């Protein structure tokens, strides 16, 4: 299951989630519904936006601390951070990980970024 799910999570952990079976972990052309794919893209764009905002928000002060002037740090943060948005949407559309787990992971990542 480990290898086929591609999640990198031990079977013992996965088995602790009711309903999270091999069937739900392996997505393919026939097993993923249009609804799920649509939800993936929707989440990709929405969460991608907040992820981008958090990344830009983190890069500005970070680059400033590394010696760039504030305005330049923000400009560079914008240029680099904007790759996150479409990149995230492509990733979430392509990933085999189930939608609930993916959303949970990305939401947690956004929260961490925002707090940081």
């Amino acid at each position: 299951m480990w290898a086929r799910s591609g999640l990198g999570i031990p079977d013992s952990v996965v088995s602790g989630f009711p309903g999270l079976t091999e069937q739900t972990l392996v997505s393919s052309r026939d097993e993923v519904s249009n609804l799920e794919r649509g939800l993936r893209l929707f989440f990709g764009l929405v969460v991608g936006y907040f992820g981008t905002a958090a990344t830009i928000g983190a890069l500005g002060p970070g680059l400033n601390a590394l010696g760039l002037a504030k305005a330049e740090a923000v400009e560079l943060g914008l240029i680099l951070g904007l790759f996150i948005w479409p990149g995230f949407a492509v990733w979430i559309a392509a990933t085999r990980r189930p939608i609930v787990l993916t959303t949970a992971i990305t939401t947690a990542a956004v929260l961490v970024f925002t707090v940081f």
Partner: protein
Amino acid sequence: MKSTQSALERFRWSMGWAHTWLGIAFSTILFVAFWAGSLTVFDREIDAWMMPELRIARPEAVSFDETVIPYLEEAQPDLGSSVFIETPSERRSAIRLVYFSSGELNFVYLHPESGAQLDLTDSQGGRGFFYNLHYMLHVEWMNLGLFAVAVAAVGMLVVITSGLFIHRKLIQDFFTFRPKKSLRRSTLDLHNLMSMIALPSHIFFPFTGVLIMAVTYFPWSVATPYDNDISQYREDVFGYARTASGVEASASLASIDEMLERTVRAIQVSKETDRAIWPDRIYIQNYGDENAVVEVSNTFPTQHVETGDGRVVFDPYTGALLEQIALTAPVKQTSSWLKGAHYIQFDNWLVRWLMFAAGIAGCVMIATGNLFWMRARVRKAQPDSNGVKLVRGMTVGSVTGLLLASVAYFVINRLLPHEAELLGRDRSDLEVWTFFLIWLFSFVHAALREKSAWADQAFAIGFLATFAVILNWVTTGATMLSPEGYLPISIVMMDGFLLAVAALAIWSGFRLHGVAAVPVRSKLADAHEATPINTE
């Protein structure tokens, strides 16, 4: 079978799904952004076509002391308001002023020699209408239009990225177009060809479009290093700023002509060049106030892509040079280049035409994608079902409907009397109403016409575009062969463009006329049903 499906195939299938559905979901907004953006490349030429009073000769020299200053003294903009002045250029001879007076935003054009205010045809023209349509769809409420375009732009980046993954023969697609094959095949060929031929621009423009407005999209992110005060960021980026004191200045404006000459010399020194680069913007901050300031800039340099390179700040009352701001930091130069390349306001005509062509290639890519998708879907359903009507209405209205509304906008501009008014709305509003009404009508028409929705609208575009050229000749006496007055290039370009659109629309109309909405199934079609994207 499922278990033997490779990871690569699954990935490509996911990308194909994202490509199709994101493309369809955002196709209307993207087509609007690409079409209006392409027209905006030649906004000043469209302005001169729609407002013939702008077709005036550009004088050898312009004195702003004799034209702008007397006008400002008479018009008396609000104390402390901002006054933007655009200097005459090769593309527009008149001086353009923008300022607040009595709570209203005023757009004024002055004759470059006499300084007299030009009595223009009341129209938003190309710059006022298509530019706004391009980046915010004329939806200003809570910046909804801005955000819709931004999300569509990001969707476009996903669509392009996924499109690259699903095509196995990118190089072959670049050289493949079989117009004599079935409509389905030639449509897909054209879609692939237009995607490949302008691929860099399809990635570049959505990205830089979001970058230009990023401060609006991510205000809190940008404000983070500035202790959440975004006004500090604006001051930092946009340069010199003073706060209005609210006290009226006792002195009058110093010579603007002298400020311009000093700016030219200052830029020559900083650039180490003998070439005189004339500023294109004069910005009076806090007009009439004690704390006023004049910023002279070369916002859209004639021979550079970067915007805002070379700004010089003066005291408006003494004419003293206060500060010179230059783009020296690599990050700022990069950002400025990216934005400047998106604005496409530099005066290199060849590059600007290439950018325009890339935009039109984007339009064709979206249109053929829509056409291909619609024909793949409607054949699975009853041709008169409500679902098919909705799909047909949306796809046809989004593409040919928008073109039809655009040429109708040009036609109504030439037909309406100078003082036209209806239901309390002025002439420029009536032009905009016409645009949106015709566009709305095109959706309804497409939903109701089963076989000939594309062809009907294509023929209508051809007719109206030709009619617009005739109307321009009748109402102004100017034609492509004998353009009247100055700025003939704008007439040649606009009339030539409209005639080209007419020819292409009529050809497309004949090509699409009578094509059944539900095509006969074929082996090729069956193959495509299995893979709705080109995966040969």
